[in-house]
Each structure stands twice: as structure tokens, then as C-alpha cells.
């Protein structure tokens, strides 16, 4: 007996409400930008400079006591947060302390860190400092720049590759969908104030990678069907293509999600933000392949009347692997 998530021969009309879905996507993008501008992103020290200290103690963390201990040190903005994780053992209490970049130095001086450590040790003698990370404002500025460059460069490279292999409409659709995925993910990060750091950028790029993977598979089928059904209206060809690849889409997203959820639950708190971003990206990437990328292609239309039929449909690079 086979597990079948999707029945054979589905005939779902994906583009029935295309105005609505596309509208929702656009609204989500706008909302994300607004959230981003209004609430801002909860940048980690990678991007704003400063120091984070991760503590582990046997007795429960008392944020208030920690705060009192650190108040006297005049460190400026100090954020203390307790971390919970199902993988922790009973006597493992973890907190993260973030200290803003100090004015006078590039990275936090050893002296500041040791003062903090001494102060905390007075509160709880069993406390251990399992990681101390400090990034200077000079580097953090550069990291922001490289990060945005990386995202932009990926989009440009993909735009170019898809344009080579398909049509410019596909390329535009794919990149618009990626743009959508990135923006909406940033929106989620702004909304829930999840820490945004270098790993998040890696996650964004992974989302781009996954989403484009999904988009390209359906585009590929679409390209094939455009040659097969020369007179069928574009929207129907698209529906056929999406329906034909639907079981693959669900299978792949399914296995990937299974793996990611395992990591999300069991992988520990250190990479949870990172894994969360990717998991969310798989969901949104799957959605956007159909409802954003295809919609854009539908909007622009595709040239159907090729003077040299069949074999040379697409362009000169379209058949290099066939």
C-alpha cells in the first residue's frame, strides 16, 4: 500500500483567484517592509557590534539579580534573556547577555568582560561562561554590507541563469518570487523580533536556493508543456504544469520539512533561529513558486508563436542537456 499525499491526476485550478493570491503576496511584501521600517530588526552583535556572553548555571537564572549586578558597571544597553530548550538537562540554566558596543574600543576589552564575569559570579558561583563573542563596530558595518551584497549577487546570478535557460519573463517571475520570499521572511523576523545575524543571512540565501529550485522545476515542466500544447491558453498550460508537478512539490517539501523540523526541535537553541528561517523559507518558497513566480509570468505572457517550432523553442541554450 502506497502513501499518497496527492491523488493521481489532480485538476486543481491554481489560478482561479490569481488576483487575490497575488494581491495577498503583494500586501504581505508591503507589510513586511512597513514592519521592517517601523519595528526594525533585532540585529545580533554581528551587525550592530557589541558583546554577547552565554552563561550556564546550575541554579535557575534570575534575570533581575543579573541586572542588578550589572547595573553598577555602566555598560550602557544590556539585554539579558533566559534561554529555554527541550534538549537542556534539568540543572542546565542558560542565559544570554548582550552588551552594546562600548564607545572607546573596537571590540570589548578583556577588562570589561572580566568585570562582567566577576559580577555575575558573585550572583551565582556555579555560573560558567560557555561562549563569549565580541564584534567591533567597524567589522559589523562591513558584515552588513557583505550580507546585502551576497543576497543581491545571488538574485542577479539567478536572474541571469534563468534568462539564459528560459525566457526573460520566467527570469523576472523567478526573481520577483525570490524577492517576495526574502522580504516576507525579513517581515517575520521584524514581527517576532527574532535575532537577525550572519546565520540569518545564510538562511535567507538558502531560502533563495530552495525556492528557486522549486520554481525551476515547475518552469521546466511549463516549458515542456508550452511546446506540447501549442494552442492551449497560457493559464491552462500553467495549471496542467503545476498539477503534473504537484506530487513532486509536496514530496520534496515534505521530506525537507521533516528533516528541518527534526533539527528545529532537537538541534539545540544555538541554531534554532537559523533553522527556523529555513523552515519558514521552505513553506513560503513552495507557495511563491506557484502563486508569485507563475503569476508574474502569466502577467507578462510568453511568446507562443515561434517561427521555428518545437526543437528550437526557448532559445539557443535551452537544449544543451536534452
Amino acid at each position, binding site marked *: 500500500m*502506497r*502513501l*499518497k*499525499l496527492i491523488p493521481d491526476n489532480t485538476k486543481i485550478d491554481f489560478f482561479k483567484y490569481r488576483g487575490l493570491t497575488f494581491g495577498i503576496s503583494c500586501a504581505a511584501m508591503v507589510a513586511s517592509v512597513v514592519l521592517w521600517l517601523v519595528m526594525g530588526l533585532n540585529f545580533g552583535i554581528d551587525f550592530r557590534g557589541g558583546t554577547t556572553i552565554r552563561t*550556564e548555571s546550575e541554579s535557575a537564572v534570575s534575570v533581575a539579580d543579573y541586572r542588578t549586578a550589572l547595573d553598577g558597571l555602566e555598560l550602557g544597553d544590556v539585554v539579558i534573556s533566559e534561554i529555554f530548550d527541550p*534538549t537542556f538537562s534539568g540543572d542546565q540554566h542558560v542565559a544570554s547577555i548582550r552588551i552594546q558596543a562600548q564607545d572607546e574600543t*573596537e*571590540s570589548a576589552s*578583556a577588562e570589561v*568582560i572580566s568585570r562582567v564575569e566577576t559580577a555575575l559570579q558573585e550572583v551565582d558561583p556555579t555560573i560558567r561562561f*560557555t*561562549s563569549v*563573542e*565580541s*564584534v*567591533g563596530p567597524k*567589522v559589523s558595518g562591513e558584515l552588513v554590507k557583505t*550580507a546585502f551584497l*551576497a543576497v543581491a*549577487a*545571488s538574485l542577479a*546570478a*539567478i536572474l541571469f*541563469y*534563468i534568462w539564459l535557460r528560459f525566457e526573460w519573463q520566467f527570469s523576472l517571475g523567478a526573481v520577483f518570487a525570490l524577492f517576495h520570499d526574502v522580504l516576507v521572511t525579513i517581515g517575520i523576523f521584524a514581527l517576532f523580533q527574532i535575532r537577525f545575524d*550572519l*546565520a540569518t543571512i*545564510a538562511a535567507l540565501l*538558502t531560502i*533563495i*536556493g*530552495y525556492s*528557486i529550485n522549486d520554481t*525551476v*522545476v515547475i518552469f*521546466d515542466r511549463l516549458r515542456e508543456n508550452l511546446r506540447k500544447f501549442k494552442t492551449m491558453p497560457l493559464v491552462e498550460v500553467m495549471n496542467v504544469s503545476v498539477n*503534473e*508537478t504537484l*506530487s*513532486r512539490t509536496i*514530496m*520534496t517539501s*515534505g*521530506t*525537507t*520539512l*521533516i*528533516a*528541518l523540523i*527534526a*533539527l528545529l526541535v*532537537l*538541534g*539545540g537553541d*544555538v*541554531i534554532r533561529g*537559523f533553522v527556523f528561517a*529555513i523552515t519558514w523559507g521552505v513553506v513560503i518558497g513552495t507557495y511563491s513558486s506557484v502563486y508569485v513566480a507563475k503569476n508574474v509570468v502569466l502577467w507578462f505572457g510568453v511568446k507562443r508563436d515561434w517561427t521555428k517550432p518545437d526543437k528550437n523553442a526557448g532559445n539557443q541554450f535551452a537544449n544543451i*542537456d*536534452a
Partner: protein
Amino acid sequence: MLQIETWKRVLIWGLVALGLVLALPNVFYPRVERYNDEVSAGSTGTGWPSFLPSGLVNLGLDLRGGAHLLAEVRVADVYETRMQGLWPDVRNLLRDQRDSVGTIRLLPSDGGELKVRIGSPDGMDDAIRTVRSLAQPVVSLTGAGATDIEVSGTGDVLTVNLSEAERTAMDDRTVRQSLEIIRRRIDEVGTREPTIQRQGQDRILIEVPGVGSADELKEIIGTTAQLSFQPVVRRGVSEDASASAGEEILPSLDEPGVFYLLETAPVVSGEALTDAQPTFDQNGRAAVSFRFNPSGARKFGDYTAQNIGNPFAIVLDDEVISAPVIQAHIAGGSGIITGNFSVEESTNLAVLLRAGALPAGLDFLEERTIGPELGADSIQAGKIACIVAGIAVLVFMALSYGLFGIFANIALILNVGLIFGILSMIGATLTLPGIAGIVLTIGMAVDANVLVFERIREESKTAKGPARAIELGYDRALSAIVDANITTFIVAAILFVLGSGPVRGFSVTLAIGILTSVFTAIWITRLLIVTWFERARPKKIEV
């Protein structure tokens, strides 16, 4: 029809076997690590057969704990020293021209330039011409044809600047020298697999596993190699001879068992040294030439003038490098160290001398300390997540595609083995996001198989016979597989180029995962299916 030539089959299984053998050491991680340590310490390793590969996946700092530092070299520090060193030469040259230039006075100036006021402005042209004769051609690829200093004059002030080409060349030398010194410092401590890399123009990235904290690491790097020139009281004393106040006993670097009794107060210390180069003395023997800055030169000159015939010791980090006898008064701040050097030894000594002290200060831009317990927790969590994810995906695939799903599962397991094999082979570093990359690959690796299987399902509705369906399935799914993976690969490549640290680790596992999953999906599963097909000869296939 479904045919794969025998040589291809052999090649595929050969590659798989090779990958698995390369991955094998990771299963016995601690044992192989100990073996590698023994081998690198020079002894024959035990506990691991030597005919097997012993490459391991390097664990990143976030997994094994350690310290990470990003330092910026204050390259401009060196300009000032250089300019100060130039002053005596300029002064001497201008003194000879006193008739036309008049009096000479050094003006205060900021780091990278030298300002001299001359008594008679009319002689400026002469002065400029004279000072220009000090210029040396710049030795670097980009600076070819340029000279190292630029001389100009306005009114009665003569200004000497370092040329742009010389600055670039100097920056490069400074960073390289700093890199060398840092490497030497850290190697001395003898930790395992430190990463010391230059990053960009003037930065150095230092990652050392197993160091307690970034602070400790800063101390190791920060200790300048103390070079000094000390008067020798006696040679050849024993280690535990008694030294009176103001004296110390130090061992010889290259003669084991030989100790020197030295005066503690140095004649000149290493900070005064500006350069050291391997050279030859007048008898053609290998030697090392060195140069002091003005104050060092004066002290050294005075001392040598008064102590001709006496030995003095060149001491580096509490070891006597050599103890030559002063032959003559050494004026001018440069001299040569002779001894029983081979050319190689003199080159090494020059390196040691130059490597003595960091040429410029370091600013630490980024410091990270990760405790070993945190790393161990992360590995544990990552391992469990990988196993759970793997099993869940295997079950899901088997339920969805039956026998074909099991073929895909075998390929998936081999895939993970191959990833570790390649990571071990290239000595890549596995980081926490890297583990996430592998888990993501486990999830996505089935994609290519799913594409093929779905296609076979479709084709089997129309195609004549199962063999044809399988063949068409593979053919038609290929373009989607290629396009989808190339685009993901592009992203991985960009991540690798622009990322650093853990992000880069992630891009490496992602890229390798793409390569191996395409290989396993296109070749291994196909080979499994074809092999099965040839044996079973099914009339009908169920995918």
C-alpha cells in the same frame, strides 16, 4: 534500452567505495585524531592502520570550542619608524651640503613624513636633489618603476614622503610579517590545527581550537619575541650555576648543553632592530646583516667601541642565538652577525630576528570564545537531529515509492557517506550551520529521485513497457534536475565567496551535498534500478 556499460558500473561503485573509505576515519574520530597527532609529532602512529586514509572532517570552533580573533594590523605604524630611520641619512647628506642649504633642523610632523627646515631657501633645489639620491626602487610587482620616497620643498621646508607604491608594498610586507610572527607564536604553543589566514588588505584571522579564551590567545600573540643584545660574562657554565644580581643564565639555541652567563641589562633590545637580512661576510661565509634605529645604533656603536674583543650575546626569547666576538667598532647602526652559519641557517636567523617582534600593533575587531561544553552539546544535538531526520525521510520515501523508494534510500545513505568522504578529503571544516546544511541536503537529496520517480509514474501510463518508462523518466527529468541544482549551486558559491566562518562552512556542505546528491540520484539509483530490472525482468512496474 536500459543499459549501462560495465566500465561505468565499475566506475560508479568504485567512486562510492572510495568515498566511503575516505569517510571511514570519521566513525572512529577520537582514535584517528590521536593517531594523526602521533604521526605529526614524528612517531609512528598506533591504533589506526596506516594503509587506510586518516583524513578527518575538521570540526569548527562552534563544535569543538576554541577562540577566534580577527585582528587588524596597524600598518601605518611602520611608516613612522621608517621615517625616523631615514632622518640620520638625510641629516648626514644635507650636512655635506651645508654651504648651499645652511642650517638643518628637523620639524615635528605626523607619522608618514619627514619635515626639515633648511637655513637658506635658495638651496632648496640642491637639497631636494641630494635627498632624492636616497630613493630606492620599490621591489614589488605593482610598484615596478616607482621609487620608495618622494621629496618636495615649499619655502624653506623640505618634505620627504613615502610614495604610494612603497606604502602599498610596505603594508603587504608588514601584514605578511605579522602573519609569520603570529603563526610562529601559536605553533610554539603547539595547539592542534590552528587557522591563521590573511583576510583582505590588512587583516588576520586567527582560529585556534582548544584554547580557553580569546584573551589567552591574545596573550600568546601579543607577547613580542624579545630580542636583545646582552654582554656575555662567561660562556659554558652549567644550568644551575649561581648568577649574581644583574646576571642571568640562558641556554644556547643551537648547541644543546651550553649555557651563557649574561648581564641582564641589554645593550640594545629588539625594539631597536629595524631590519635583518641574510648576507655573506667578506670571507664569503653566510651571515646576517641587521640594522638598528638611530637610538639603538648610537648605543650599539658606543658599546662596540668600548668592548672590542669581548663577546656579546644575541638573545631571542631567553635563548642565546649566537655570541660573536666584537671585531671592531660598529658605527652607523648596522652590522653583521657571523658565526658557523650555513646559508639556510643565516636565512632562518634573519627570519627569526625579523619575526622577533610584531612590526605593528594589532587592533582586535572581533573576538569569539566558544566553550568546549557548548560545542559538545551542539554536536550531540546535531547528531540526534541528523539521525531522526534521516530515519523519518527514509520511512517516508519507502512508504511513498515502495521498492524504488528503498533504492532511493540506499542512495541517500551513500550520499551522506560521500559528503563526509569529500569533506574529509578536502579537509573542510564542519560547523554547526554545516550540520544544518547536511540535514537540509538529506531533505532535498531525495528531490532528484522524486522528480525521476514521478516522471516514471507518468510515463508508465503512456509508454510501452516498464523499461521504456524508466528510460523516459530519467531522460525527461534530467533538465529539471540540472537547472534546479545549478541555481542552488550558484547560491552556495556566492555564500562561499562572500561568507566567512560558519556561513562559509554551511556553503561548503551545501555545495558538496548538491554534487553528491545529483551523482547519487542520477547514477546510483539508476544503477540500482537497472541491476534490479535485469534480474527481475518485471512485466509491470509499480512506482
